[in-house]
């Protein structure tokens, strides 16, 4: 008996000391920013390879680019960063950049045109996934020594294969892949001719406002202010991003003051914290688009009337106003709002009668059975179930297959789905990024393997629209270009096997003390260096 009493006492004591150790609910220090986010998609920090959301967030704060966006005025478009100014040749093919003088990398090395030359050539030569952002202008491993050239330490010249809208080229250089690396430092870490790819995976060599402090995969990533930053040292000396999976956990941490910013709160938790006087909610329209796609290899789905009917069988408004409340807004064209040429037409809404009529005309008065694949993310599952429910009202039985992201993506890229529900985010802030995937399919054969292109994945053969999209891509006149994209989108809305449904609004919970947080809108990633408390 006494042993029991003793051990109970001991355990009780242990628990009591635990309680004594309560953190006083103290807020985070004033020169430190703590963020909860999902960062499990980071696999590398090399700007020539990094391609996921969380990686882009890190990269934007570490690597300066030739041209960049001002986080406090995103609407202004790109402006000078490491390049102080630039000129375009008369034939529109060559852009000459004048480098900003006196800028240093975090390592102390000076930033020269040679570094820019090395960085851009490197991105082309490494041939990693995002390299297409540069190679679409005709740069290739064979010609980079002629097309990307540092004339002297302060002058960089790049020459494209055709005449493109200058804004298209420069916008592309604001993508992660346009990050300028410290060539001296990277070269010293080269192994087997990998141009430092392995080293840059876990180290950084930039001239931006921050340098990498530490990265613990799936745990946290810490950025430390770069004392050499040409724009002046940022107010937040340290930025810590913690990987927190659950929305409710993020909210608890925010409410208790253990973090300053929570980036993955669901609508219910947003509603929950909006009553809290110490917290604020920011809403920012992002570039991500939510859509469902119908594989044209499926004979039923290839019927234009069926496609149209399905677009009337989605409860856009019901979803927007309930479980997507505040976080997605109805949007039915492939260019996100704020992009050049974006349109705001919303021709579709839930209309079961009309859909039934169309289905009857198509020869399916009693509906049919069809599969739908979706990855196991909460809001997508809810969308899928809502769509399953409204499709059923016209007799269409949907069999859901849920899997992990990679699993579903594998099926989609292999064109083995019926219906796919998923998201698409722009890669660089130019309309071509989405047009070239939603409205272009140069070769519809299986062997072509154009797995990066959504129209190909859905076996949608569109020679005419492909020509129009290519024409819009190379159109140098901005206004005319915008018109061309508008026209393509209106046609796309009518005939495509894509039912584009929503555009993302990112809602961020933050402590009221935090100011000037810019997530990057629809065009770029988050900027920590302007944040103050």
């Amino acid at each position, binding site marked *: 008996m006494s042993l029991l009493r003793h051990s109970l006492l001991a355990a009780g004591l242990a628990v009591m000391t635990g309680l004594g150790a309560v953190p006083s609910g103290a807020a985070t220090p004033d020169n430190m920013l703590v963020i909860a986010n999902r960062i499990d998609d980071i696999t590398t920090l090399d700007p020539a390879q990094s391609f996921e959301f969380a990686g882009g967030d890190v990269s934007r704060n570490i690597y300066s680019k030739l041209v960049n966006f001002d986080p406090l005025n995103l609407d202004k478009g790109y402006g000078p960063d490491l390049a102080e100014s630039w000129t375009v040749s008369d034939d529109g093919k060559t852009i000459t950049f004048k480098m900003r003088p006196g800028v240093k990398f975090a390592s102390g090395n000076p930033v020269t045109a040679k570094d820019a030359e090395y960085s851009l050539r490197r991105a082309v030569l490494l041939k990693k996934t995002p390299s297409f952002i540069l190679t679409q202008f005709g740069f290739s491993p064979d010609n980079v020594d002629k097309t990307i050239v540092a004339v002297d330490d302060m002058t960089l010249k790049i020459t494209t294969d055709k005449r493109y809208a200058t804004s298209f080229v420069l916008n592309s250089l604001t993508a992660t892949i346009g990050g300028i690396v410290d060539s001296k430092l990277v070269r010293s870490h080269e192994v087997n001719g990998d141009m430092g790819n392995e080293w840059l995976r876990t180290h950084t060599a930039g001239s931006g406002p921050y340098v990498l402090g530490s990265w613990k995969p799936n745990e946290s990533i810490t950025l430390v202010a770069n004392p050499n930053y040409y724009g002046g040292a940022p107010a937040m000396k340290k930025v810590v991003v913690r990987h927190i999976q659950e929305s409710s956990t993020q909210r608890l941490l925010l409410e208790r003051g253990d973090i300053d910013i929570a980036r993955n709160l669901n609508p219910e938790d947003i509603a929950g914290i909006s009553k809290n006087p110490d917290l604020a909610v920011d809403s920012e329209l992002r570039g991500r688009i939510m859509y469902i796609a119908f594989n044209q290899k499926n004979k039923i789905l290839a019927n234009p009337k069926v496609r149209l009917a399905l677009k009337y069988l989605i409860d856009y408004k019901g979803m927007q106003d309930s479980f997507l409340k505040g976080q997605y807004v109805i949007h039915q064209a492939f260019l996100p709002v704020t992009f050049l040429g974006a349109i705001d037409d919303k021709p579709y809404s839930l209309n079961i009668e009309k859909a039934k009529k169309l289905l009857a005309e198509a020869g399916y008065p009693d509906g049919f059975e069809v599969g739908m694949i979706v990855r196991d993310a909460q809001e997508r599952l809810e969308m899928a179930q809502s769509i399953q*429910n409204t499709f059923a009202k016209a007799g269409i039985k949907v069999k859901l297959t849920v899997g992990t992201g990679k699993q579903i993506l594998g099926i989609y890229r292999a064109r083995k789905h019926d219906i796919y529900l998923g998201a698409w985010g722009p890669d660089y802030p130019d309309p071509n990024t989405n047009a070239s995937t939603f409205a272009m399919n140069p070769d519809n054969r299986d062997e072509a393997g154009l797995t990066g292109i959504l129209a190909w994945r859905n076996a949608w053969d569109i020679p005419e629209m492909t020509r129009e999209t290519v024409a819009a891509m190379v159109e140098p006149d901005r206004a005319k270009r915008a018109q061309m994209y508008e026209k393509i989108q209106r046609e796309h809305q009518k005939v495509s096997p894509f039912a584009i449904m929503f555009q993302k609004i990112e809602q961020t919970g933050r402590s009221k003390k935090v100011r000037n947080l810019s997530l990057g809108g629809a065009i770029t990633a988050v900027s920590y260096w302007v944040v103050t408390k």
Partner: protein
Amino acid sequence: MSISDPEQPNVSQSWRDWLLTDTPTSRRHARIAALYQGWLSFRGNHMAMFGLFILLALVLIAALAPWIAPHDPFAQDLATRLKPPGTPGYLLGSDGLGRDILSRMIWGARITLYIVALVALVAPIAGLFVGTVAGYAGGWTDRVLMRITDIFLAFPRLVLALAFVAALGAGIENAVLAISLTAWPPYARIARAETLTIRNSDYIHAVRLQGAGPLRIITRHIWPLCISSLVVRVTLDMAGIILAAAGLGFLGLGAQPPTPEWGAMISEGRKFILDFWWVATMPGLAIFTVSLAFNLLGDGLRDVLDPKEGSQ
């Protein structure tokens, strides 16, 4: 279950005597009498009876689901989502898509029972087979089979199940298979241990002398003797199996939406836990209740069937 037959209130005295006899007239008679005595001692265990009662109620609810569920478990209504318990028409509240939680739980009982029944069939039988063969054959067969058993035992269990489901695709049947795959090794161990003690008994020697082959000995004479310890173990493991299935559902690898599987319901509801606690809590309570019932029942059965902790 046949053992519940003799429990009629107006059992005639002779029935009772026949059941409680010390001198059974046939093997069948002896077995039934033993069962009846077990039942009598089991009946005295209130907690176990309570467990049994809950499980019977569960079976009843599952069987009558179409008649007692107030709503269609799949019917969505985005206008009445997240209503609290007690809202007219939604006794236990509604979920994120405006479906009635009570109706979903009632239909979910079927899925839980289905999972339980399948695993209870697959895993112990596989284990019984491997264990008795290994124990009876001995030598290399034993060594190889037991090595395989050890390999599966050494596997992190949820990981093995996850890997299996990931390989075959998510779904209830695959979840059941995956759980069985992780659950059978302990049964094999028990069955082997029992077989080893029985194998050299005089009784088996006698049977062998009568010319029975190994197959007949294993199936007709060794299996029946292993059953009681397995039944106890299975009942006690049942809770773990329900929780494992719910865990897979929670990770999105069990039943697929919109199936009202309890674990998946918790998973869907966990994002609302701070403001709309009932969405995750109601199915959580259901899982808890049924697991508890199995544990109570198993505990009671052990008292009756397992001599180690016998009631005298």
